[in-house]
C-alpha cells in the first residue's frame, strides 16, 4: 500500500455557487486504477461523490473523465503508472456539469444521431449475412472498436467553441459506415458532414488521437472522410 493524494473536481449545482476541488488521501493498492480510488472514496469516505461507471473493463465507456489534464477511462488508468502527486481528476471538458464528475452527454448523442450510425442498404437482404472480404473490412481500419466514451469529442477545442459540431466520435462513426462496402448511405449522411458544424471544423490538432483510450485515430479518419466528400462533390 502507498498513500497517494487525489484532487477531485466537486460541484453540486443545487448547493454550490461555483466549482471547487476537494483533496483526498488514499491508501492505494498496487494494481488499483482511478476507478478503484473513486469507489474507495464513494464507498468508505465520502458518499456524496458522483461519477459514472458500469462495466469496469474498458468497454462501456461510462467512466471517461480527465485525469491530470488528459481524457481517459478511469477503469483503465493504473495509479502505479502515474508519478505526479496529487493526481487531479476533472469531469470531461466541454459538457454541462450535472454533478461532480457526471456530465450531460446529450450533445454527444445528438451529434451521433445526425450521422445516422447504422447500416443503410436498401438492397434485398441475402439469405445469410452480407459478406465482406478481408480487404474490404480493412478499409474501415479499427474504427469499429470505438466504445463511444466521448473522451475524443470532449478533448476537441472545436467542440468546446461550437456545441453543435459533430465532433471526432460522430465523425469516426460516419467514417466507419462510409468506408463500409456494404453501406450505401453516404447521400443521406452528406448533409450532416458537409456542413458548417460538420467535417470542416476539424483543424487536425490530434487531441482526439491523444485522448482515445482505445488508441483509435479519429484525425486520420476525418482526413479520409474529407477527401471522400470532396471527391463526391467534384
Amino acid at each position, binding site marked *: 500500500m502507498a498513500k497517494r493524494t487525489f484532487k477531485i473536481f466537486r460541484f453540486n449545482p443545487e448547493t454550490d455557487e461555483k466549482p471547487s476541488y476537494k483533496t483526498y488521501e488514499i491508501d492505494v493498492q498496487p494494481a488499483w486504477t482511478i476507478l478503484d480510488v473513486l469507489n474507495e472514496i464513494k464507498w468508505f469516505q465520502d458518499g456524496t461523490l458522483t461519477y459514472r461507471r458500469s462495466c469496469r473493463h474498458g468497454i462501456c465507456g461510462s467512466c471517461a473523465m480527465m485525469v491530470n489534464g488528459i481524457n481517459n477511462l478511469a477503469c483503465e488508468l493504473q495509479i502505479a503508472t502515474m508519478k505526479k502527486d496529487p493526481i487531479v481528476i476533472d469531469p470531461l471538458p466541454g459538457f454541462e456539469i450535472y454533478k461532480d464528475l457526471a456530465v450531460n452527454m446529450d450533445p454527444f448523442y445528438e451529434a451521433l444521431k445526425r450521422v445516422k450510425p447504422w447500416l443503410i442498404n436498401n438492397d434485398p437482404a441475402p439469405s445469410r449475412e452480407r459478406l465482406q472480404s478481408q480487404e474490404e473490412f480493412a478499409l474501415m481500419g479499427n474504427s469499429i472498436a470505438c466504445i463511444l466514451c466521448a473522451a475524443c469529442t470532449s478533448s476537441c477545442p*472545436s467542440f468546446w*467553441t*461550437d456545441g453543435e459540431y459533430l465532433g471526432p466520435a460522430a465523425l469516426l462513426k460516419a467514417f466507419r459506415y462510409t468506408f463500409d462496402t456494404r453501406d450505401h448511405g453516404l447521400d443521406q449522411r*452528406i*448533409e450532416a458532414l*458537409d*456542413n*458548417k458544424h*460538420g*467535417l*470542416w*471544423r476539424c*483543424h487536425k490538432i490530434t487531441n482526439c488521437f491523444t485522448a482515445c483510450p482505445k488508441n483509435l485515430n479519429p484525425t486520420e479518419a476525418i482526413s479520409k472522410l*474529407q477527401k471522400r*466528400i*470532396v471527391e463526391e*462533390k*467534384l
Partner: protein
Amino acid sequence: MNQLLKQFGTQSGGSTAWIWQRITGLVLVIALFLHYLFLHFLNGGNVTYGEVSGRLAMPLWKTIDITFLTAALYHSVQGVIMNIHDYVHRAMLRVTLVSITWVVGLILWITGIATVIAIKSL
C-alpha cells in the same frame, strides 16, 4: 429572417472552400519560393524599385504576381472566415463579420491587381 441568417454561408457546406484553401496553399508554396528566389537571392539581395518594376513590367511576371496575390488573399480570407465560423455563433454577428472579411479581401484584391497592371518599366 433569422433562419436565413443561420443558413448564411452554409449552402455550399464548406467542402468547396476547404478544397480551394488547399489548392491556394499549394500555389502559395510555389509562388513564395519564386518570390524569394528572384527578389532576394538571384539578384544578390539588391531590391530596388527599378529592379522590381522592370520585372513586373513583363507580362509573365504580372501573371505570376496576380496569381500570387489572388492565392494569398483567397487563402487568408478563408482562414479568417474559418476562425469566425469556429468562434462566432450569433447569426447576425457572424454574417456581419463574414461579409466585412469578403469586402476587405475584395478591396485589397482590386487595389493589388490595379497596382500590378499599372506598373511599367522605368
